[in-house]
C-alpha cells in the first residue's frame, strides 16, 4: 500500500466520521462505514492525483453511506435526513456496473453517481459549479443528472402522499 493509512486517518478520519454520522444518523454504523471509506480510499488512491484528499474522502463517504441507506427502514429525523433517504432509495443503475467499476479503479477515477451528485447539491448546498468541480464533471452534465433525479424524487413524493 502506497498510502499511509494511519497518517491519513489522523488528518481526515474525524471529517469522514462526521460525514458518515450525518448521513447514517447512527454512531455505530458511522464508525463501521468510516473504516470502509478508508478501504475504498486505498482502492481509489489513483484519484488522489486529481482531487484533494478531503474532497475525495467526502465523496467516498457519501457513496459508502448512500449504499448502506438503500432500503433503510427508519423514520427521518429532519428534513435533510428525509431528503437523504429519498435520494438513497432512487434506482441508480450506473453504480452497479461492475465492469465499469473495475475500469474506474484501473484508471483511478471515482464514479460520480447521480445520487452522490444530488446529495452534494441538494443536501450539502453546493452550487452547480462547486458540485461539478467536486465530481470532475461539467456543469451541464451535473445539471442533467440533477434534472433526471429530481423527476424521480418528485414521483416518490407523489407516491408517499
Amino acid at each position, binding site marked *: 500500500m502506497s498510502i499511509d*493509512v494511519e497518517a491519513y486517518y489522523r488528518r481526515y478520519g474525524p471529517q469522514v466520521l462526521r460525514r458518515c454520522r450525518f448521513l447514517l444518523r447512527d454512531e455505530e454504523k458511522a464508525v463501521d462505514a468510516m473504516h470502509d471509506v478508508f478501504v475504498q480510499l486505498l482502492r481509489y488512491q489513483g484519484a488522489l492525483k486529481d482531487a484533494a484528499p478531503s474532497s475525495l474522502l467526502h465523496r467516498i463517504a457519501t457513496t459508502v453511506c448512500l449504499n448502506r441507506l438503500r432500503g433503510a427502514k427508519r423514520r427521518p429525523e429532519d428534513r435533510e435526513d428525509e431528503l437523504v433517504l429519498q435520494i438513497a432509495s432512487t434506482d441508480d443503475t450506473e453504480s452497479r456496473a461492475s465492469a465499469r467499476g473495475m475500469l474506474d479503479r*484501473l*484508471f483511478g477515477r471515482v464514479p*460520480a453517481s447521480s445520487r452522490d451528485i444530488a446529495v452534494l447539491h441538494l443536501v450539502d448546498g453546493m452550487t452547480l459549479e462547486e458540485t461539478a468541480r467536486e465530481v470532475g464533471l461539467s456543469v*451541464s452534465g451535473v445539471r442533467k443528472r440533477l434534472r433526471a433525479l429530481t423527476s424521480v424524487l418528485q414521483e416518490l413524493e407523489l407516491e408517499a402522499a
Partner: protein
Amino acid sequence: MTSPRRTPDWLLERIALGELPPEELAAARTRLEQEPDGPSRLAALKADSAATLERLSPEQVTREVEARLRRASVEKKAPARSPWFTSALGLVPVLAALALFVVVQPDSGTLEDPVTGPVAGLGTETTRSKGLSPKLEVHRQQGRGDEVLADGALAAAGDVVQLAYVAAGRTHGVILSVDGRGSVTLHTPEQGAEAAALAPSGTHRLAGAYELDDAPGFERFFFITAEQPFAVDTILEAARKLAASPEAPTAPLSLPEGLTQVSFTLQK
C-alpha cells in the same frame, strides 16, 4: 448541513483542514469569522476531531482497515482468477467498443436534410478563417490520454467526454446536446440569455468533462454559431422541438437565418 448565509459543514471541514485554493481559503475564513457562531463552530469541530482520535486510535483504525482490505482481497480471489485475468476482464468492454467502432463506423454524413434540402444557414455560407468551418470535437477520456472520436462513434453510459470547438471566425456560439430520451442539455453558455462569446480561432475545450448517462440510442451534440450575439432561448426551443420528434437522430435544427449549425452524434 446548510442554511442561508451560513458556512456549510462541508466547507467548514475544508477551512479547518486548509484544503482550498489560497484565495478561496482566505475568503472563506473571513466569512466564517464574520458569522455569529463561526468561530465557535470551528472550535467545536476541532474539539470533536481530538475526541474522535482519542476514542478511535489511529493504530486501531489502521489495523481494522488493513484487515478489511485483506478480507476483500481473499473474497475476490475465491474464483481463482489470476490478477492478470481480472484486470484484462475489465478491459473487455473497451476492446469490444473499439471493435465495434472499427466495424460499424459510418461514413461522414451530409448535414443536408434529405427531404427539404439545405436548412437555413447550412451549406450556404462561405468558409471563413483560412478555409475552416465551425467544428465540434469530442474526446473520450481514457486513463492515460484522450481518444478522439469520430462522428457516429459508439459510446456508452458512463463514458466521460470532453467537448471542444473550432469557431472558424464566428464570434458567438451555443453548444447543446439532444439525447434518445428526449432531453436537451445546454453545455455552453452555462448561464445567461445570450450565446457565449467564442475564441474566433484555434481549438478550445469547454470547462469540465461531460459524462454520458443511460439515455438510449444516441447523444447528439450541436454547435450553433453566428457573427453577432443571439438568444439562447431560440436555440433551446428549436432543440426541444427536435428532441420530441422521431427525426432527432438525423434532422438539423430549424433555426433563423444567419445561424450556422454543425452536429456530432455518439451512438449508444
